[in-house]
């Protein structure tokens, strides 16, 4: 197996990692950096449980090779809260009951964080479009959309 040595920033920390060349960004985050907040769901770019920010934009980390990430800036769900304080969105999703089993939550938070960054006042349709790549089998989405709406206010 061939390895690549990459240097990247993950949640504001600079990391240098040796990665097998077939390793995905998702595997690297979970297995090399032990950041297990990011989940593996479908491994096909459908469910969004593995969504992270790569250079400020959300991507499915199961669909990115770690070897491609040399020089990249990654933010995972662990990087959202600062100094032990949850973001407004994280607070809102807890309070509104937008978390049930919690498996989709990390990806959902990343997608919604990115949405609010590019569009501070999204409509209901824009919110639903932004999380179309994040499947949730528990909540029926209503409370998640509510949480995003509350944060946008």
């Amino acid at each position: 197996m061939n390895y690549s040595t990459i240097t990247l920033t993950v949640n504001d920390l600079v990391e240098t990692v040796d990665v097998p060349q077939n390793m995905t960004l998702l595997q690297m985050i979970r297995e090399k950096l032990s950041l297990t907040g990011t989940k593996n769901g479908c491994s096909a770019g459908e469910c969004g449980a593995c969504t992270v920010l790569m250079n400020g934009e959300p991507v499915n980390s199961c669909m990115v090779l770690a070897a491609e990430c040399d020089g990249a800036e990654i933010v995972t769900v662990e990087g959202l809260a600062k100094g032990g304080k949850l973001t407004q969105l994280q607070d809102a999703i807890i309070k509104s009951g937008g978390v049930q089993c919690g498996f989709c939550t990390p990806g959902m938070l990343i997608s919604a964080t990115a949405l609010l960054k590019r569009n501070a006042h999204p409509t209901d349709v824009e919110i639903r479009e932004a999380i179309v790549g994040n499947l949730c089998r528990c909540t029926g989405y209503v409370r998640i959309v509510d949480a995003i709406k509350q944060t946008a206010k």
Partner: protein
Amino acid sequence: MINPHPGLPELQYVKPTSLAEASKFLAEHEGIARPFSGGTDNFVRLRDGVLKLDYLVDVKGLEGVHEISFDSKKGLTIGAAVNMNKVASNPEILRHYPNLAEAAQSVASYQLRNRATVIGNICNASPAGDTIGTCMVLGGVLRVHGIQGFRDVPLSSFFLAPGRTVLKPGDVVVSITLPVPPKGFVGTYKKLGRNIIGDLSIVGVTVMGFPSKDAPSGYQFRIALASVAPVPFEALKAEAVLSQKKITDEVITEAAESAMQAVTPIDDVRGSARYRKFMVRNLTREALTEVWKKLSK
């Protein structure tokens, strides 16, 4: 079958820094190396075992692949590494090619569109490719770099069969150029998925219409159909109907019927062949009516 294992089969990642190097490497590793940019098609097929490779060749370091530019004479050029979200939100594209932005926007989800590219959509040669029809009706031409150097390949002669194109070992598609659209054109993309957004197309209908002095009806139309034949294609007979006869609701229906006659869909998990045929007719009629309403205003 989706393989839920997070890993990819054993392979090597190669990132050439020049087109000459990329073409040489790909030609020397025929059948076991493939170019990729976003990986959204390749990775799924590698995991499923449908695609077997020893090397994934990243095109993102090559010259010209990040270009996205509009020139009032040459038209629009989109590089192989330009993702769908960039296409859907580019001000020049929204202004001059709004139908392309619409088609790009219809692909999968926001995070997938951050990786997926128009060139990848074309090179994957899926009959269902969402952006292919629009590139086709706009007369897209691919800039290909092979071991002999550059050549241009029109999209109309690019596809051979599902997943098969005229590309030869060593070829890398660098960009696509879409000529300046005809004056006063109106276009739309009607996509039928199992959901309103986020799904692959069961039927995809691209329509473009524009005023034309050469046509007896005063207008010319282009109609491209996806997911209803081995390759995306233009319904030429239906187009002819619309340029020959004065356009009325009846003539639009006739053209839609003709589009339906031109398709050869299959039954699959997303829809039956029969359903697809009827939906080609209905969506073509809907798209033509919508475009005609705006054109004749």
